């Protein structure tokens, strides 16, 4: 008998699968998550995987939340412990009153368990060995068998699982039958031998709606397709490689000319990140929409080229799927740690435009918009994803595209413009917004050609080392950055229902955890106004929001409070008023963490009880 009452919950709990990587568990685990989704219950799965191909521990966490909380929660209610290497740690991480599902083929000493959890043994290996002779089959079907057992234990709709299997193995009847058989082996064993369901169970509902389930990297790549990217140059690096892979896949389906079977895209796996960004810059200089996908170490390698693109004013789009640094750091763990290295990338005075999508839907939108912004502003645009958004399936609103949408190619002078006698000076600020006109190579036989260089030049692109034209150009670049403030996605403000002197700023993948945490903080009687920053340079809304509050928490996933420092630096804010809330252990930030930290800080600030705050 467990010392603590078994957890009882419908449609709100966390299941964690502990596996060995390379064992084929990923597809079974994903099948589990998708099946829950098909029952109309929101899920947020997360892959916690090592930088390794085979043999090391990997976890798959599925947060089931009818209320729609998609951030990591922390803690495990039901552990499916399939990895002896991590057994002790896995058992220790189960919430008191939680459940353990394990392979009971071999007896385990009682010391290996806890008395405050509910232990459920299923002889998975024995079932497999009885049923299969091929070692590979024994391995693979074991995963499906535990999904089958789970389906009985938490009362899943077995029809939904079978339907998903049939969709997965469409046209491969044999595989469908084999998987269905394995599913029922586990399910029937559980129904026959265990008390089903346990305290954790599912009830079909309709809380998923028309939302889709997609990885951020795939959505961002789709954004690049819709945004008109034709050239992609990249170098493999976790966690961004799947973005380039997804772009390749999307292009093969969507961008092959139906008549000629020729490609309306060119994708180069470059020799390194320097070459990747060089190709992007070359292509964009020549009028194509081009991008690269990379992560922090790649951004470091691209620094010199980024200064060129900034100074010579060449559009470029970079998807930075952030991972924990510095150096190789934790390549398969998430962080928001490249804010500085992107915002001020390269030597000399530089500033770059950053976009911070919160989920795959925004990754798609910003992914497409980045190309318009790059062309309009003639400068690199960074789409700041991270591993948490990029490499996990996330429930989000359906992707949308307006067929009347035209690409904004920015200020490009055509042969007709030149023939009409329009004055062309490559770095001439004709409109007062800091953005000059450019021409594509090959535009006109005698007009509009210029020499692009990283050295200083005057408004007509003529080489000069004179101080005045140099300063004039640097000032214009600042004006251009000012223009960018009103072109990039605006921050989104959500005020508490009640007046408060406290606010919170957050961005990117922190969103779902923050949205959940705000309720927990409010439940303690402490309302907070929220501002989600979606881009750098900061819109006037950002300093305005800070001015409206005595103190503002800045929640981010890095050690050095990078966004906070950027705000202090760019908006001239007294740092005392911005309180950092920092999570940087490589796991995704949780609502529990945010709520606890902010509550502690509010305590320390000696918050006046709310009723006395009201003016």
């Amino acid at each position, binding site marked *: 008998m467990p010392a603590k009452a078994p957890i009882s919950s419908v449609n709100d709990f966390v299941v964690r699968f502990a596996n060995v990587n390379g064992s084929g568990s990923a597809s079974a685990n994903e099948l589990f998550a998708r099946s829950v989704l098909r029952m109309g219950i929101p899920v947020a799965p997360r892959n916690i995987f090592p930088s390794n191909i085979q043999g090391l521990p990997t976890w798959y966490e599925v947060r089931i939340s009818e209320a729609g909380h998609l951030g990591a929660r922390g803690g495990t209610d039901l552990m499916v412990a399939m990895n002896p290497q991590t057994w002790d740690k896995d058992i220790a991480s189960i919430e008191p009153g939680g459940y353990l599902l394990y392979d009971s083929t071999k007896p385990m000493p009682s010391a290996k368990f806890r008395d405050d959890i509910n232990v459920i043994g299923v002889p998975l290996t024995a079932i497999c060995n009885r049923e299969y002779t091929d070692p590979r089959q024994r391995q693979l079907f074991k995963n499906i068998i535990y999904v089958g057992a789970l389906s009985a234990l938490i009362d899943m709709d077995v029809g939904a699982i079978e339907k998903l299997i049939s969709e997965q193995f469409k046209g491969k009847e044999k595989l469908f039958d084999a998987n269905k058989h394995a599913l029922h082996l586990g399910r029937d064993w559980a129904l026959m031998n265990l008390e089903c369901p346990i305290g954790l169970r599912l009830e079909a509902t309709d809380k998923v709606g028309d939302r889709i389930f997609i990885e951020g990297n795939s959505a961002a790549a789709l954004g690049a397709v819709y945004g008109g990217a034709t050239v992609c140059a990249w170098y493999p690096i976790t966690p961004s490689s799947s973005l380039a892979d997804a772009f390749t896949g999307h292009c093969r389906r969507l961008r092959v000319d139906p008549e000629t*079977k020729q490609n309306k895209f060119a994708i*180069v796996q470059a020799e390194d990140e320097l070459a990747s960004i060089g190709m992007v810059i070359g292509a964009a200089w020549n009028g194509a929409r081009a991008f690269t996908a990379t992560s922090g170490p790649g951004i470091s390698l691209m620094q010199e080229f980024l200064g060129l693109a900034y100074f010579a004013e060449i559009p470029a789009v970079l998807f930075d799927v952030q991972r924990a640094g510095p150096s190789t750091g934790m390549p398969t763990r998430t962080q928001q740690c490249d804010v500085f290295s992107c915002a001020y990338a390269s030597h000399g005075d530089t500033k770059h435009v950053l976009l911070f999508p919160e989920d795959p839907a925004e990754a798609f939108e910003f992914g497409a918009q980045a190309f318009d912004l790059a062309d309009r502003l003639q400068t690199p645009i960074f789409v700041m994803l991270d591993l948490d958004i990029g490499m996990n399936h996330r429930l989000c609103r*359906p992707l*949308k595209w307006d067929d009347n949408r035209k690409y904004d190619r920015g200020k490009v002078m055509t042969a007709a413009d030149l023939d009409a006698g329009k004055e062309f000076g490559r770095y001439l600020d004709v409109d007062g917004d800091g953005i000059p006109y450019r021409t594509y190579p090959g535009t006109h036989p*005698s007009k509009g050609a210029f020499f692009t*260089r990283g050295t200083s030049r005057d408004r007509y692109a003529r080489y000069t080392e004179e101080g005045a034209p140099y300063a004039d150009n640097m000032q214009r670049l600042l004006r251009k950055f000012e223009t960018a403030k009103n072109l990039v996605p605006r921050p989104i403000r959500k005020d508490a229902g009640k007046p408060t002197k406290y606010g919170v700023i957050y961005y990117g993948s922190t969103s779902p955890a923050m949205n959940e945490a705000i309720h927990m903080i409010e439940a303690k009687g402490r309302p907070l106004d929220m501002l989600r920053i979606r881009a750098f340079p900061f819109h006037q809304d950002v300093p305005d929001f800070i001015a409206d509050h005595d103190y503002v928490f800045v929640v981010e996933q890095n050690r050095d409070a990078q966004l906070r420092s950027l705000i202090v630096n760019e908006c001239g804010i007294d740092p005392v008023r911005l309180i950092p809330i920092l999570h940087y252990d490589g796991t995704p930030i949780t609502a529990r963490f945010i709520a606890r930290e902010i509550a502690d800080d509010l305590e320390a600030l000696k918050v006046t009880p709310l009723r006395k705050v009201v003016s």
Partner: protein
Amino acid sequence: MTYITKPKFHHPALPKNTLGYTHRDYEGKISTLCAGCGHDSITASIIEACFELAIEPHLVAKISGIGCSSKTPDYFLNASHGFNSVHGRMPSVLTGANLANRDLIYLGVSGDGDTASIGLGQFCHAMRRGVNMVYIVENNGVYGLTKGQFSATADRGSKSKRGAVNTDAHIDLVAMALQLGATFVARSFSGDKEQLVPIVKAAIEHKGAALIDVISPCVAFNNHAGSTKSFDYVREHNEAVNRLDFITGRSPITVAYEPGSVEVVEQHDGSKLVLKKVAADYDAHDPAGAMAFLQHHAAKGQIVTGLLYVDREPEDLHEHFNTIKAPLNTLTEKELSPGSAALEKINASLR
């Protein structure tokens, strides 16, 4: 200096090419290199080659890295767009540009420091990808702008102006290009315009990765006794394997060559390379043989020049990628956006 404007005066009797352009239409700004610099001779050869081929100057993109050689694109083809990029990174910028618009002619200009030291990786990968380009290395074995340090193409044992002896082995870019699958590999000498101009013409017409390694003495820092890249040394040790005539497709061969002394290589576009053999046993279609020939002569201190290798059936990156004929930079939302209906289908598949 570049800010001194060149007079635009044209002598009325200047010869014109089939497009009606004169030499002057292929010139650039006044060179800021040292008087007598080999690079200026290469610039003159590029101008001559483009004039003779009657190329529309604005349909050329000239791209370079950083260094003395990389400054030269400013000194030819004023009507072309130029891009003086990052040290050692011309190949990647050019590759990207080429992908964006396959219809332009791409002249990549680099030096021995830019290519063989900092840019060795990018040089290799551009060659092995078969980017359709002319890759000209203006090779003087020395860093000019930083005043005379050895570069990676300096021969072991050669002496710097200050008397230091280079103890490192040299990198032979021609041998590397052969090994890496370049489909056109030549070496020439800036002081031999007769040899260089037809090679540049042939390289421009070649549809693939074409490397021309041009030994181009640095009069300021590498033209002394003890240097193996000086005018005198190169003249004395130049071992030309062939001489080239380049004949565009439409023109018949009118010059009478001695029987057995020439080989005519027909290119894809119908143009012809007439190889006048100097070394009777040299086969310009055999990369392994070329490599052995190079090494054999290098051991004797000779500099082998000429068109050393040409692939009769070259392929380029666009063929490998199966890209559409229209330049990618001309495609609009009409061709590129799959539209909302396709997106709805994708949404449906993600539920």
